[in-house]
């Protein structure tokens, strides 16, 4: 009996660890900004380069910061849903147009609609790096105090919104 005990214990301990490993997607990285203030940035507006979009623009209400680009396939996939969020007035969306060409980005917004309160134009990708973006699209939920609550990497949709974003918004609003 004793000879089997040790291997049995080893199996019982390791199987859950392995199962955990199977279910975690190594491509989904945790953002080091969760629970911390959003990174400081200052960008010229995409549509109107004379205005600046800064971290301070986000403060005062719950916002969604969306990193997007016209070269990004996932951004096209989520665009319809961002339009829906904007039209329903669910949350103000701030765009960071990442490593893109201004003319292409403007014609994208013209053709597909503009869900953003304003988009900052991040031509040399430095602000995207400051936010720790490793791909596009990425969406950050930032609370009224400017604290990052959640980061989602990949195209947004209704199911993800209801599952990941809504509970966090409600939790933050609760006293």
């Amino acid at each position: 009996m004793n000879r089997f005990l040790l291997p049995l214990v080893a199996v019982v301990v390791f199987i859950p660890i392995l199962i955990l490993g199977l279910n975690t997607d190594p491509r989904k990285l945790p953002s080091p900004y969760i629970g911390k203030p959003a990174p400081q940035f200052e960008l010229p507006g995409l549509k109107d380069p004379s205005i600046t979009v800064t971290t301070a623009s986000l403060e005062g209400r719950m916002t969604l910061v969306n990193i997007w680009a016209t070269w990004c396939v996932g951004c096209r996939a989520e665009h319809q849903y961002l339009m829906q969020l904007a039209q329903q007035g669910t949350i103000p969306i701030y765009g960071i147009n990442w490593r893109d060409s201004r003319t292409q980005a403007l014609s994208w917004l013209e053709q597909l609609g503009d869900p953003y309160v304003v988009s900052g134009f991040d031509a040399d990708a430095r602000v995207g790096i400051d936010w720790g973006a490793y791909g596009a699209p990425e969406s950050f939920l930032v609370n009224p105090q400017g604290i990052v609550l959640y980061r989602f990497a990949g195209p947004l949709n209704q199911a993800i919104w209801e599952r990941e974003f809504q509970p966090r918004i409600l939790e933050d609003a609760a006293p």
Partner: protein
Amino acid sequence: MRGLWVLFAALWFATQAFAIDSKRAFEDPELQARYVKIISEVRCLQCQNQSIKDSNVLLASDLRREIRRMISEGKTDADIADFLVARYGEFALYRPRTSGKTLILWVAPFLLIFLGGIAMIRIVRHRMSLPIDDDAIEEGKPY
């Protein structure tokens, strides 16, 4: 046959032509060596099993540019590591720094060797204490 060797040599040296940045980043060989060492130890976050030295995705080239900028601004290796970890987490570094969070990565191999050693010594001691039963071998019985 000779043509074949020439072909091999051509293919062999051709790999150098695929280097990402064809120009050297720094004139100073010391800075260049530092730069190459750093970028070969930073994970490309988009293509996770490559370093940013080997990857040609946009993010990797942006990060190489940022690291070049920081080196020329006189930042230390630790500053550059801090920059990356603040944005991407410890995961960005192929050589994680010793800290509370990554301690297990550094300690685990030695711990496992130690535990394995103890197990081995115990098994060998146990076997040595068994009586040698020559009769059993002669009669073809199992131990």
